[in-house]
């Protein structure tokens, strides 16, 4: 019994598995970072160079000979670095030179944090940073990638990977939702709907939010508050439950869409595509094999879903 549990525990965390789930997430995450990078391009001079109100967080604590590496650079260097950042996000999404691209992104993420984003400290940028660290050693480029195209002649070719990075990412998302929801149980500001009303008419409020603030009666914000807390409470559990997962995906997507539309906080829209991380990689491979012949012809037969193996 105990041995069986340990074996299952070990298999759940560390078994060898198909890479498709992680590859799909890699594509979505890279594309998301690329789109985010595009939004910052017009602001590169004033956000990341010496032409703006930009102050290095680390520079004052470093020896003067190396401070220039961390102080705001000239506009041309700022554009060059940002081009490297945007290129790296594309390489991540396309799965070409993936580990080099992720390493560049990690270094540049830290650089931009100390240069500019320490004045906009956000939970999602921390989440992105941890995600990049995990992806670095994940093997997420081992299918649906230019890497496999150059190596094996097809983007559909694949090689098995360890499931641990996928589990770590899904565990982190679970922890994030649990942390956000549980603390709302006792945070004073979240005990009624005022926080939503004042958020709608505060600095994050969008035109639709201001419109709602003008038309909704105050008691509706209390109900919205309950809805937010219930959503965030059940989401991390339902995403793991097969029979509740689809509902969780729909509710979670609507939840993050509403945050993006009403408060302009769109960066968490990376989470709905990340819900695929909660699926078992063998099930996803089975689903893909039924629809993409090129994957069905793959030589990695040991990873065929049990139902296919039985039908043969």
């Amino acid at each position: 019994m105990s041995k069986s549990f340990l074996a299952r525990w070990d298999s759940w965390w560390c078994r060898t598995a198909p890479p498709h789930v992680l590859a799909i997430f890699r594509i979505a995450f890279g594309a998301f970072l690329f789109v985010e990078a595009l939004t910052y391009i017009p602001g590169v001079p004033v956000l990341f160079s010496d032409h703006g109100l930009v102050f290095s967080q680390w520079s004052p604590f470093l020896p003067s000979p190396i401070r220039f590496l961390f102080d705001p650079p000239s506009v041309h260097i700022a554009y060059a670095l940002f081009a490297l950042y945007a290129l790296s996000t594309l390489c991540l999404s396309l799965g070409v030179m993936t580990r080099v691209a992720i390493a560049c992104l990690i270094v540049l993420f830290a650089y931009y944090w100390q240069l500019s984003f320490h004045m906009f400290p956000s939970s999602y940028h921390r989440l992105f940073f941890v995600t990049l660290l995990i992806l670095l050693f994940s093997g997420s480029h081992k299918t649906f990638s230019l890497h496999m195209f150059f190596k094996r002649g097809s983007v559909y070719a694949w090689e098995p990977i360890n499931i641990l990075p996928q589990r770590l990412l899904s565990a982190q998302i679970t922890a994030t939702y649990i942390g956000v929801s549980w603390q709302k149980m006792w945070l004073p500001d979240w005990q009624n709907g005022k926080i939503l009303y004042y958020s709608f008419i505060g600095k994050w409020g969008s035109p639709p939010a201001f419109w709602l603030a003008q038309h909704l009666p105050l008691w509706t914000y209390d109900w919205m508050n309950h809805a937010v807390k219930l959503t965030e409470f059940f989401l991390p559990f339902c995403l793991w439950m097969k029979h509740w997962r689809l509902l969780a995906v729909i509710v979670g997507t609507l939840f993050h869409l509403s945050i993006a539309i009403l408060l302009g906080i769109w960066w968490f829209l990376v989470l709905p595509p990340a819900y695929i991380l909660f699926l078992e990689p063998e099930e996803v491979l089975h689903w893909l094999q039924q629809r993409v012949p090129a994957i069905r012809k793959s030589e990695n037969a040991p990873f065929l879903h049990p139902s296919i193996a039985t039908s043969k």
Partner: protein
Amino acid sequence: MLFSYAMMAPYQGYERLNAGLSAEGQITEGEWEPINLDPYFPVIRGESHMRQFFMIYEGSGTTLEQQMATRTAEKLLQLEHNRGHPYTAIRLWWNQWEPSPAGYEHQPDKQLYRRPLITIHE
């Protein structure tokens, strides 16, 4: 631990008052004009105001606030000179006002609380 906790802790509270930075440049002795800070924050309003807040209040304590404000004002003076605005002095204010459903900048009762942060000269 703090880094890990910060990933789980978005949007814990809200500010009862809207707040933001404003700046004025001295044209001649005693004559000041407002400086448009929008070009320095080409991002959405929420991010813009967070950046303004952390630019002044990243640390804590009055001494640090003065250091941050001085640093910001000196840099702003230099940047405005580069933009062709030869101000002889810059002063910064931290503003707070009552929020209103009528609009973010709307101040129905003119309840604008202005606190001077720093004045620096060329």
